[in-house]
């Protein structure tokens, strides 16, 4: 075996592979900087006139509290409310929140399955 030949091939090969891929890293980073604009969360709009406690109370009356099954945590209610509000642009109203029918042992929850499916679908 010609050791110098072997080492030359190994050295050249590794250097070129790294060189090409490092170059691609640099280009991808520049491309990301130029093309990716992270979405800024919308700044809360200042109301023209401060809402009076009376109006706020009236607003609360307009959105009746949903009927929530006992045992459901407040955090869960908040998450569901936020999801519905995001999906419907704030126009949706929640009438009631109840637990889904029991799942069989060993199976994922519907939300977990949906999230997993969405993340892994391309692969």
């Amino acid at each position, binding site marked *: 075996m010609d050791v110098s030949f072997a080492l030359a091939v190994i050295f050249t090969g590794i250097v070129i592979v790294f060189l090409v891929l490092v170059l691609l890293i640099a280009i991808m980073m520049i*491309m990301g900087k130029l093309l990716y604009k992270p979405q800024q969360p919308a700044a809360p709009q200042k109301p023209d006139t401060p809402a009076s406690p009376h109006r706020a109370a009236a607003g609360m009356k307009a959105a009746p509290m949903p009927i929530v099954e006992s045992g459901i945590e407040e955090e869960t209610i908040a998450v569901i409310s936020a999801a519905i509000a995001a999906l419907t642009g704030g126009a949706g109203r929640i009438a009631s929140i109840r637990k889904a029918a029991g799942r069989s042992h060993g199976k994922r929850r519907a939300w977990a399955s949906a999230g997993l499916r969405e993340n892994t679908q391309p692969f």
Partner: protein
Amino acid sequence: MDIFLNTLQGIAQSSGFAALGSVEGLKYLAMIIIACVLLYLAIVKQFEPLLLLPIAFGMLLANIPVANLNSHAEGSLLYYLYQGVKLGIYPPLIFMGVGAMTDFGPLIANPKSFILGAAAQIGIFMTFFGALALGFTGPEAGAIGIIGGADGPTAIYTTGKLAPHLLGPIAVAAYSYMALVPVIQPPIMKLLTTKKERCIVMEQLRPVSKREKIIFPVVVTIIVSLIVPDSTALIGMLMLGNLMKECGVVERIAKTATNELMNIVTILLGITVGATATADTFLTAQTLFIIVLGVIAFSFGTASGLVFGKIMCWATKGKVNPLIGSAGVSAVPMAARVAQRVGQKENPTNFLLMHAMGPNVAGVIGSAVAAGVLINILTPYVK
């Protein structure tokens, strides 16, 4: 009556059964048994069945005595189909289908993953050295080393260019080890990482715009092809397939590349590569060496990816889980799934799959670049 008996005798003497009785025939018998074992692995154990099944059946056909149906038997069906391998047509077409099925989003979101894809290619060059030490010629050693890229079409393409007589054993080794990724990798991953490292939860990747996904294949093709022109066929087809998927205006041909074309080429590639494995070329000490060197190549690739993963973990002060480095050895998406599984075993809430897909698809590009480099350097030594 005599004519009838003479005819029967003639048929018996010229049949394959008569040929199996000789010493040469025993070699054919051994190859038929090996082909049946591979069929068993493909069907029952489901080891990369889409490729191992046609490969095994091609091997079976090539070793039926007297039938003379192998990829080198001029005039036979498989000889003509084999020209697609010999001329380097099938592997790039498969790459086009792979590109049309691959989402490079995780890699674009985290381009540093390219480093892990490059690191895992070190196994290719280490194995190249090992093969030279065992007495293989330079081109043969290059073809054996590419098994470490864990990329079937790349291995077949490189072997077709550098050492076509080794196509059978290298294809069998490459696809068998790709199927064994979930068995080979986890012990190495556990050996080279600490429990604390395996538990690291990585930050969510940023979303990638459609424009970035469309520009990516064009940029990669230009850059890689200009630096390593010998890998243009592989990278070009891979990126063409991806561009067809991402641009969204040629949905019909993107679907054809992923389904019909890919399936047809897979059948032709598998059966003709399998049919190169005749008793004379397969039942040799070289095959045994290739099988051993193949597993060494895989292990080195996994280990070097993990070591670079650890370096990145250290450099980012614990933001990178080193397990994703093991996915740099291509084998898409199996290697990424293994990283996910091993990580989730330590921390059930951890979800590493998307992070591991970055190095995984970077490994495909890395192994194609490595193949181009080896073809460029070693082609003048092909006899």
